[in-house]
């Protein structure tokens, strides 16, 4: 801004403001200064200012849009902490990216509501932010996806990129796939494909109870589980298929009563946040001793709350790996993170993957234009700090990497969760190639 003022306004400065200044200077040097000379001095001063502006380059601004207040605030805040830490750890402390530009994370609180997301998106636009990290709630991710597609269509040259690190409704990379959306987590069908393989291999399971939050992701978990189990183990009976309102249930005991009386051998749920921990607590409190298969039953207080009572009962399907961590680099990242944030954990290493891949795309293209970044991300193969190669499929912008099933326990846990001594230990792992699924995505590519 000052630079612009210098360039366009230097004439005005001299005409209007310098009268006073000239008097002052003349007071000291006791001789009139000719105007051309003064112009030259101001010009030199301006040149100096301009120069310093360009060497302290503008930061690359990235928005982090997730719930930072309200019922699901803890998950959002942890994500923000991880992203900010990774930015400092890998880039800002090492002189930035693209030859000296820092990365600045701008937190935008969408309260996990689609309405609020629209407002925050407007704010991001007005602040000229072109990359948005978002993960919590597929409903929000769908809204953002549509909003961004519309915005980008109408505002060529000012496009925005959606970096989805956690919302796993398959539709985002299938029917509603978009050139401007990239997903860095395995979607629900990929995860359920592996999870149902695992369940099908357990001959003790003869019946299954499905319970989930009543919104897009919960419905997907239910429909896909029923479909896949029917194919893989038609003898497994689905004895319950329950939906409850998201974030509204005070007490899960009435639901658990139904689970108990149904005689189910296992429970599967896509619940997260407070809904997950309340459900698991109620199941365990009822004395029911059956495995609970989940997506999100760890960290942010959940592991500590489940503690001993959930040991060997709770299992999670997730991408990447849990204990034992594969490489020293990955371990060191955890340790350093823990030093800086003793009360948080590296809950979602995929945030780090997403950040590193986006930065690599920027470095490759020497650009922060979302279009260039998107092209570079397509079909990128990237080796994570965990030492595994992951692949961003160009056709639908879906990441592929190892999928793991881990168990909640306190044995063999090098990196625990919530400082509780309990954590996740990986029991079952599937390599990248076996996680690949077809996509119905027919992507519309923008022309440039």
């Amino acid at each position, binding site marked *: 801004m000052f630079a612009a003022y210098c360039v366009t306004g230097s004439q005005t400065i001299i005409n209007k403001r310098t009268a006073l200044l000239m008097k002052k200077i003349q007071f000291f040097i006791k001789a009139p200064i000719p105007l051309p000379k003064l112009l030259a001095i101001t010009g030199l001063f301006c040149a100096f200012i301009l120069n310093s502006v360009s060497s302290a380059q503008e930061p690359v601004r990235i928005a982090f849009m997730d719930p930072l207040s309200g019922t699901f605030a803890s998950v959002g805040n942890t994500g923000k902490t991880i992203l900010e830490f990774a930015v400092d750890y890998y880039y800002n402390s090492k002189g930035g990216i693209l030859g000296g530009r820092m990365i600045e994370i701008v937190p935008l609180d969408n309260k996990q509501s689609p309405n609020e997301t629209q407002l925050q998106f407007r704010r991001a636009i007005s602040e000229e932010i072109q990359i948005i990290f978002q993960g919590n709630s597929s409903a929000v991710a769908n809204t953002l996806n549509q909003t961004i597609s519309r915005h980008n269509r109408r505002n060529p040259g000012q496009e925005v990129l959606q970096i989805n690190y956690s919302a796993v409704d398959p539709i985002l990379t299938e029917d509603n796939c978009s050139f401007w959306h990239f997903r860095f987590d395995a979607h629900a069908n990929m995860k359920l494909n592996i999870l149902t393989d695992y369940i099908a291999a357990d001959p003790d399971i003869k019946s299954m109870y499905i319970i989930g939050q009543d919104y897009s992701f919960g419905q997907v978990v239910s429909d896909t589980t029923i479909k896949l189990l029917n194919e893989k183990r038609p003898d497994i009976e689905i004895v319950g298929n329950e939906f409850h309102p998201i974030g509204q249930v005070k007490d899960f005991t*009435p639901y658990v009563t139904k689970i108990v009386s149904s005689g189910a051998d296992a429970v599967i749920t896509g619940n997260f946040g407070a809904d997950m921990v309340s459900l698991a607590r109620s199941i365990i409190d009822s004395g029911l001793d059956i495995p609970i298969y989940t997506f999100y039953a760890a960290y942010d207080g959940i592991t500590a709350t489940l503690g001993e009572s959930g040991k060997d009962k709770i299992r999670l399907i997730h991408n990447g790996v849990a204990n034992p961590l594969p490489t020293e680099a990955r371990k060191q990242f955890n340790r350093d993170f823990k030093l800086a944030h003793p009360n948080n954990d590296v809950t979602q290493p995929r945030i780090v993957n997403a950040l590193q891949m986006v930065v690599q795309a920027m470095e490759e293209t020497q650009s922060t234009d979302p279009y260039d970044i998107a092209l570079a991300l397509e079909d990128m193969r990237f080796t994570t700090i965990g030492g595994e190669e992951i692949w961003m499929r160009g056709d639908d912008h879906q990441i592929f990497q190892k999928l793991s099933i881990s168990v909640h326990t306190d044995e063999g846990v090098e990196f625990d969760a919530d400082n509780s001594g309990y954590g996740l230990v990986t029991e079952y792992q599937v390599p990248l190639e076996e996680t690949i699924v077809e996509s119905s995505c027919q992507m519309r590519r923008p022309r440039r």
Partner: protein
Amino acid sequence: MLEVFIFATLNGLVTGFLLFMLASGLTLIFSMMGVLNFAHASFYMLGAYFAYSLSLYFGFWTGLIFAPLIVGALGAMIERYGLRRVHQSGHVAELVFTFGLAFLIEEATQFFWGRDTKNYQAPELLDFPLFTLLGQEFSAYRGFMMAISIGIFIGLYYVLTKSRVGIIIQAAISHPQTVANLGHNVPLIFMGVFGVGTALAGLAGVIAGPVLTTFPGMATVLGSIVFVIVVIGGLGSLAGAFIASLLIGLLQSYAIASDVGMPDLLNLLGVSFDRSHPLNDLWTMNLPQIAPVLPYLLLVLVLIFRPTGLLGNREE
């Protein structure tokens, strides 16, 4: 099926009694001051958090006794130094004050305790199944919750109807001027009632924290339902609040336990729609799915057919 019914009833009663502990304080405060305390559920949350912190150092039982006292004292202070000043500016100002207070408490809680779920556990002493019926356990802690709530109900009922203090409170509700003229300190009574009301909410939080999990959203989840109870029961009516609490507790519990829905109704009527019908969501809806909405439905019905609430007698 029998065990589902029995446990649904038990669960409904546990929830109902818990809701009553919140609703009783709210309705008492309303009948005294004529203002709905929007921050009431926030005191419930504070109770849980205080008890959690105390339980880390002194164990569960200390938290059970002292957390409600702290919350009650805090409530009394807020009445004395906040609400009483605002009171002079009328009901709207009071309403806005408690509304703001709710946000303030929620943010303060997150500031001091963080945003994650707290590991607040029931005491080991109560960590056993009270009884096992047809393969289902009923935990001792739930029995304990029920016992505490019933104890509070009886105690409250006794104090309000039989003791001298209760008679003065009841008089102060309907005729504050007369009570003041008789030489009683009405502002002190107000402060006491507010303190006890918030302490009851705090106690509800203490005993609910381990079961319903202690997290920053716990006030929001319970807040609206408590207002529904107070309105259904009739504003200012303690007996009404009691009936409405149990009614809603049982209603939700039975609705979740049931397995009926629109498909059954349609079968009964002999009508059927295919899955591509535009109102498919409506035709496949079942009762457990809408269980959490039922109290609000009941609220609307009560307001239409009996605007004063079940036992309310305020005609304005």
